[in-house]
């Protein structure tokens, strides 16, 4: 070893040929790489198929059924599944299949907006807390702690109780209870990324803090946020169903799955299909999002890469 020898004959300035090149072809961005990992994951594919299916039926709901979700028919009360009523009818003679299909719209919408709302406000607070630190961090983090100290459903019930029961207020409540979950995640990510050497390098190059924050810190914190958002989708749908079940979410005759469960629970013995199909739908959607979320976590985790 003699690094000081003026080795002008050494292969300068050529690249180090002795080191093996990575087998990845040129220009595979980290996102493309993650996507390739994701589609290799069979469970994630199953999750995507399930969610894709529910999105499909939500979009094309009116084309999939000849009934309307609120049309009652006393003559057709509690009919078991048949060729005319695929999933049977409920205690008011409404077609359960139709209500499930329209219910998918509501659940997906609640999940989407609750997650977007929680994500937006949670990330904003998390970035502020993580980047500025000191007393701002202190205040925001303590608020998060207080919110997380309550069981989330209890907090949601309290918020809906204040705002009044409706689907929209349930959505707001679910968004609010999810803010600290995103907020803490973003904060911890920002704090750890802030200390990375490439952030110091960005500063040394003469970048402004806004640029460092949005071009360097944030893009490196997105992976866990995306995973959390996907998993949060499932949780939000479950929470919406729970609020619906308690009568604090969607009001009749809105075909909300949780509400359908609670309206039919007294017929669980005599007409089990009335609770089976909404319950199954909730389970499938939540399962689908969780499978995608787990797949994304594996695909985006840099430690999983060889």
């Amino acid at each position: 070893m003699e690094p000081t020898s003026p080795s002008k004959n050494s292969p300068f300035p050529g690249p180090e040929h002795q080191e093996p090149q990575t087998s990845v072809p040129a220009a595979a961005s980290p996102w493309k790489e993650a996507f390739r990992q994701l589609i290799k994951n069979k469970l994630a594919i199953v999750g995507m198929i399930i969610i894709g299916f529910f999105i499909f039926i939500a979009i094309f709901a009116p084309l999939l059924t000849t009934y309307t979700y609120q049309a009652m028919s006393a003559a057709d009360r509690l009919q078991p599944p048949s060729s005319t009523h695929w999933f049977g009818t409920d205690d008011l003679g409404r077609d359960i299949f139709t209500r499930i299909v329209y219910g998918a719209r509501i659940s997906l919408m609640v999940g989407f907006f609750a997650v977007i709302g929680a994500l937006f406000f949670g990330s904003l607070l998390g970035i502020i807390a993580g980047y500025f630190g000191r007393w701002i961090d202190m205040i925001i983090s303590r608020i998060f702690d207080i919110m997380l100290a309550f069981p989330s459903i209890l907090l949601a019930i309290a918020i809906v109780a204040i705002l009044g029961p409706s689907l929209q207020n349930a959505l707001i409540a679910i968004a609010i209870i999810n803010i600290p979950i995103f907020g803490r995640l973003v904060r911890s990510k920002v704090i750890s990324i802030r200390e990375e050497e490439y952030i110091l390098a960005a500063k040394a190059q003469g970048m402004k803090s806004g640029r460092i924050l949005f071009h360097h810190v944030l893009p490196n914190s997105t992976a866990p946020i995306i995973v959390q958002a996907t998993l949060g989708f499932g949780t939000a749908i479950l929470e919406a169903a729970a609020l619906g079940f308690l009568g604090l979410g969607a009001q009749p005759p809105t075909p909300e799955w949780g509400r359908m469960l609670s309206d039919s629970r007294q017929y669980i013995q005599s007409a089990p299909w009335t609770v089976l199909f909404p319950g199954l739908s909730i389970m499938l959607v939540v399962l689908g999002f969780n499978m995608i979320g787990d797949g994304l976590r594996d695909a985006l985790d840099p430690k999983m890469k060889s």
Partner: protein
Amino acid sequence: MTVKPLLEVKHLKKYFPIKGGVFGRPVGEVKAVNDVSFEVYEGEVLGIVGESGCGKSTTGKALLRLTEPSDGEVLFEGRDVTKMSSEEMRKMRRDMQMIFQDPYASLNPRHNVGKILGEPLLVHGIGDKKDRAEKVKEILEIVGLSGDHASRYPHQFSGGQRQRIGIARALIVRPKLIVCDEPVSALDVSVQSQILNLMEDLQEEFKLTYIFIAHDLSVVKHISHRIGVMYLGKMVELSSKDNLYREPLHPYTQSLMSAVPEPDPDLKKERIILEGDVPSPSNPPSGCPFHTRCPKVMDMCKTDVPEFREIRDSHFAACHLYNEEEPAGQQIK
């Protein structure tokens, strides 16, 4: 030298508070850089050596205000950078760049090489999009990579190649001064010499000024014109490379030099082995910081802080052994 220095560092200090207790009040200080002064002339390479924790990296970072200095002045072309507003400082960074130690941590993994190298140009408003892409291509070839590497991501490169990217990033805005913070210590020995030669060639080609921080004496000897030796937050000796290697004045430097391995196994030389550990920088010894381990310690070393002064022509040291007019060091030896 009669030339005006490019960079003058005067009494630079960086103290890190030690927080303790319930309310996180400062209960002490780590004196990472404790009153360091030196000058860097245009076109020269000033090496700074010292063992781990002696404050050499902190000095480098404090010069660029990547960590705010606690006290002292850093004059770059006569202007004190420590007193600049953040916007002035931001513009100033075009002339003062840095190469980092760890090529794996210092490149943003989410940006491709084109973006990593183009961003410094963008934030300093140099050229339009097309110009920048061309400059990126040009600089990649200068550092020994190929122009079409611009679309690749850092993880697709080896350590040596990444460090070339790091060098290109510092170089692309054509700075006057580059602080190199142990740029080769994270690399394989086989790659070190390539990177060192590249840095040396670039320095000559672009008339760059380097502050080259390292703990490897042979690396520093290879690239530097002058060398400063740091111990426990203080600079103990500063001299031209030849003088320092031929005749180290400070006992600490002498012991460092004796530790450099000789390629010739027949050449016997006396090793000066230091006793004990480096004292804690939060509670440095009184007087000369080296007195606890110095083989030539005298009584006054324990009480009086030796002044860092010119002992021979352009050969500075902080040691009481040289207090008389005549260099007394030889007689004591």
